[in-house]
């Protein structure tokens, strides 16, 4: 508190000295001011004057009062001096009062701080005492605590022991109560609970069985457990409750320590019983008496009943008897195999019933379902090979289906042929000549094609993406290439060719019954197949079935060659048949006539007209299906009349020598020389696929027959003349049908020459007369 004495002395108050103090005061003030400023952190920002060293600066550090006064006195007038003096005095006063306030305030603070410190000093002293007391108290507590612990030590051990005894007693109690509890559980049917109790007690009882009391309990328990097991088995055997309950029973029995092997035998036997029942019901569906449900329904039943049951059994078995190891798995596999095979046998029987049916989509769906259902047990029981067997069945069915389709295609083809036969027979009755062969051909072709397409479509169902077995290698490869392409399509085309060929193989009774128009139509059909249809069908097949298999397939060219060969044989046979018809006519006409006593010819014989008519009809018939073909250039488009003139003039020259009744050697020689220069005629030779070639073949056969028949007869003069007339007539009309009219000339020449040879009195008719008769006829 003594420090408060410091402060501005009363003697040095402002205005004490007008001059001296006045000069010193600002300096002091300034010192004090600067310190305050320092204290309050004010910068000397407002320090006027650019030069801090300026001694005249009132606020500067180097202020020199003398120089300032000097300067004032020198520079300022009086009034200004006065003003500055008052101003200075005022400033000094203001500063003084400021300082006074500050000092005062700080003084107060200092006083209060001093008071506080003093008070604290007192308080601390008190606290020290308290602390000392606390320390002593704590020491006392520690002491006590140690003493208590020491006294409680032995009692704690006894409590622990007692607690242990208590637990043991409870366990013992459980054991003693166990028989009654088990009995109760068994009575209540809570087998699970009973088994759990038993399981808990078993080990203990096992361990302490040498003690008589425990032995008694154990015996009791065993009796009860045996009963329990008995009951479980009973329940298990009764087994009406389905697989899950059974599985539970087995699980409990296993927990009871029953021999697993025996159990799994029994389990399987039981499952077998149930599955066999399913099979029996399936078999009953197969039976003939109730109307068999459709195949889809059948496979559904089978899938749900048998396959589902098998799945359950297998799953439960694997869960329960997993510990059995490979032997158990093997047992299950054998079980599944055996039942599976019986199931498959049933399914196959059912599918066999379906073979005749035509609804492929239903069958495929049924197969799909069948196959799909078997995938689950197949995955479960890979060893039983169920999935493989199922796939095999599906494959077999697919194969049989293909066979069936092939059969139905063949039947369709034969049906077409029957239709054609009827159509060929019908218009003839109506008296209409020449049924629309081209139309019939188109009908047959389109009907066969549509049948093929239908078959392809229905077979295609087997490879549809959504069908579960379509990605099996068989269906991806062999089915497409060997089955569909080779077996079905190629097989059908082949069998078509064979069927067609069979018409020309037996010229006896069967061949005679075949209408020639049918031969012609078939021939054209085969030819069309060769040119276009085969490659179209095969392309279609390849596209639809995306044949990826590498196995060799019949190339299109081979099939085409076969079809062409068939067409050729059919056409050749057609020529033979038609030639035979005309031949028969000619032969009869030569054989039945008495040529020796015939009258002078007046007319062409009717049979020759008939021959020409028939040939024309054949020409029309063939023209419906086959193109014209090429003639030798020699054949002009001359009309009949001009030809007749031309031919008769030539005829004269050619026949003349042979008609003169010269020695037979001459004719011989002549005809021999003629033959030397003409080519040998193959009468029954293969024909080409055109009208002219066909007609040439028929005419060749007919004329050769005529020749041979004439050689077997003996002619009178008029007989020879009749032959002459007939031959001329034939020549007039037949040349236009053949490729090389020279051929007709040659054969007819030979006929007339032979007739002349067979005539004892050969006097030929005048060619002009022959012409007249022919033109008239």
């Amino acid at each position, binding site marked *: 508190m003594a420090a408060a004495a410091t402060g501005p002395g009363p003697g040095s108050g402002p205005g004490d000295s007008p001059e001296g103090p006045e000069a010193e005061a600002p300096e002091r003030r300034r010192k004090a001011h600067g310190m305050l400023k320092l204290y309050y952190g004010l910068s000397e920002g407002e320090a006027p004057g650019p030069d801090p060293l300026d001694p005249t600066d009132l606020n500067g550090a180097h202020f020199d009062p003398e120089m300032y006064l000097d300067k004032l006195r020198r520079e300022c007038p009086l009034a200004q001096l006065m003003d500055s003096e008052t101003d200075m005095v005022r400033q000094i006063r203001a500063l003084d009062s400021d300082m006074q306030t500050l000092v005062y305030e700080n003084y107060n603070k200092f006083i209060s701080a001093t008071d506080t410190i003093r008070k604290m000093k007192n308080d601390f002293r008190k606290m020290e005492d308290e602390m000392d007391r606390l320390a002593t108290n704590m020491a006392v507590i520690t002491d006590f605590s140690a003493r208590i612990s020491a006294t409680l030590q032995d009692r704690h051990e006894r409590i622990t022991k007692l607690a242990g005894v208590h637990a043991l007693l409870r366990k013992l109690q459980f054991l003693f109560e166990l028989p009654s509890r088990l009995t109760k559980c068994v009575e209540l049917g809570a087998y699970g609970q009973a088994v759990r109790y038993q399981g808990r007690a078993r080990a203990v009882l096992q361990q302490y069985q040498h003690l008589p009391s425990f032995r008694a309990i154990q015996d009791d328990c065993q009796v009860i457990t045996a009963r329990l097991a008995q009951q479980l088995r009973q329940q298990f055997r009764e087994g009406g409750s389905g697989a899950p309950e059974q599985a539970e029973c087995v699980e409990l029995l296993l927990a009871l320590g029953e021999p697993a092997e025996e159990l799994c035998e029994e389990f399987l036997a039981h499952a077998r019983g149930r599955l066999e029942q399913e099979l029996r019901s399936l078999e009953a569906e197969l039976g003939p008496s109730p109307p068999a449900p459709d195949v889809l329904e059948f496979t559904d039943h089978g899938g749900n009943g048998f396959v589902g049951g098998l799945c359950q059994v297998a799953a439960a078995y694997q869960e329960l008897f997993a510990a059995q190891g490979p032997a158990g798995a093997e047992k299950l596999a054998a079980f599944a195999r055996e039942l599976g095979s019986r199931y498959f046998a049933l399914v196959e029987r059912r599918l066999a019933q379906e073979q005749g049916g035509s609804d492929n989509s239903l069958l495929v769906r049924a197969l799909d379902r069948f196959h799909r259902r078997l995938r689950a047990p197949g995955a479960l029981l890979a060893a039983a090979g169920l999935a493989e067997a199922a796939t095999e069945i599906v494959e077999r069915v697919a194969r049989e289906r293909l066979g069936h389709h092939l059969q139905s295609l063949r039947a369709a083809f034969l049906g077409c042929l029957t239709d054609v036969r009827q159509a060929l027979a019908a218009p003839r009755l109506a008296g209409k000549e020449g049924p629309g062969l081209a139309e019939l051909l188109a009908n047959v072709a389109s009907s066969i094609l549509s049948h093929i397409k239908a078959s392809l479509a229905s077979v295609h169902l087997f490879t549809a993406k959504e069908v579960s077995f379509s990605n099996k290698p068989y269906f991806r490869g062999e089915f497409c290439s060997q089955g569909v392409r080779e077996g079905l399509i190629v097989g059908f085309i082949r069998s078509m060719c064979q069927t067609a060929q069979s018409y020309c193989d037996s*010229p006896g009774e069967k061949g005679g019954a075949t209408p020639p128009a049918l031969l012609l139509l078939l021939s054209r059909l085969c030819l069309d197949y060769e040119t276009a249809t085969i490659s179209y069908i095969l392309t279609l097949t390849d596209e639809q079935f995306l044949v990826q298999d590498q196995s060799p397939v019949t190339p299109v060219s081979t099939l085409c060659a076969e079809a062409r060969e068939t067409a050729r044989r059919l056409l050749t046979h057609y020529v*033979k048949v038609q030639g*035979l018809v005309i031949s028969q006519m000619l032969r009869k006409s030569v054989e039945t006539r*008495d040529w*020796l*006593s015939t009258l002078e010819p007046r007319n062409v014989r009717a049979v020759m007209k008939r021959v020409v008519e028939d040939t024309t009809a054949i020409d029309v018939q063939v023209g419906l299906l086959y193109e014209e073909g090429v003639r030798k250039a020699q054949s002009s488009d001359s009309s009949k009349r001009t030809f007749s003139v031309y031919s008769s003039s030539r005829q004269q020259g050619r026949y003349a020598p042979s008609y003169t009744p010269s020695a*037979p*050697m001459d004719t*011989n020689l002549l*005809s*021999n020389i003629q*033959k*030397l220069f003409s080519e*040998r005629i*193959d*009468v*029954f*030779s293969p024909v080409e696929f055109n009208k002219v070639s066909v007609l040439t073949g028929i005419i060749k056969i007919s004329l*050769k027959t005529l020749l*041979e028949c004439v*050689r077997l007869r*003996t002619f*009178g003069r008029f007989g020879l003349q009749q032959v002459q007339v007939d031959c001329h007539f034939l020549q007039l009309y037949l040349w236009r049908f053949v490729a090389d009219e020279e051929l007709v000339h040659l054969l007819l020449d030979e006929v007339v020459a032979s007739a002349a*040879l*067979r*005539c*004892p009195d050969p006097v030929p008719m005048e060619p002009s007369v022959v012409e007249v008769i022919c033109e008239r006829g």
Partner: protein
Amino acid sequence: MEDDAPVIYGLEFQARALTPQTAETDAIRFLVGTQSLKYDNQIHIIDFDDENNIINKNVLLHQVGEIWHISASPADKGVLATCYNKTSDSKVLTCAAVWRMPEDSEPGGHESPDDSASTAHTLELLCHLDNTTHGSMACVTWEPTGDGKRVISLADNHILLWDLQESSSQAVLASSASLEGKGQLKFTSGRWSPHHNCTQVATANDTAVRGWDTRNVTEPVKTLEEHSHWVWNVRYNHSHDQLVLTGSSDSRVILSNMVSISSEPFGHLVDDDDLSDQEERRPEEKSQEPPQDSVIATYEEHEDSVYAVDWSSADPWLFASLSYDGRLVINRVPRALKYHILL
């Protein structure tokens, strides 16, 4: 080894009838009958000299008519039978007669071939086969193993069995049978069965030759279609009956090896019933590989229809064929095949 070239002989007339001289087993000899309406018909006896490839001929006149069929007696080489056309005005009837050749007409005589007509001998008529009640005769065949006393003839649809008595000077109709069939049948050809148990027959129809088993006639055993016109004549070789000769009006002669319709056994399968031919066949048992049916050769020497072919009775490897224009061709089985069969 080159095969011998065919030997060709020309007749002046048309001819259809050809037969080997059956009773002659030493010389290769064929009889050919001509067909001529205007001139006297002839029977040419053609003797083939195998060593020198030379043909000797002898001409006999057959004045009654043109010859449609000829057959030689198996017992007496001087005796033959013909079917011939008798042409009266406005009527043709085919008759049959048995003839004896003159003794001195044996070939090897000194007749020159070109003036045959002047030196021709006439046949001596032994007897007529009286067929007035049965219609035209189609053919006459002798009982092949008999003593030349029994003859079968075909007349329209009758089979007639004749007994030739008193050294063939008289023919008595021993029995006749009429063959029934659909339509008006005219049978044109008949043969004695060469074996007692014969089950193999070949027939010709159109261009096809079919082998039949007489126990089952619904289906032919074998069909050969090599000719391009009618087959007129089929002949089995007498001792190796897998060799089949066919003549056709396409002017070809085809020699086929038709094992499947022959009685030649495969390998060691010897038919016990076939005892008559056992001696000949024994040495010919062939290697085990079954031979295939095949065409051995096609002969194209003819230029007209071939109506007759036949094997020589003396040499089983030699055969003759006759075409309508009077050309006779003698051919041999190719040597390679011959040795294959024999060895």
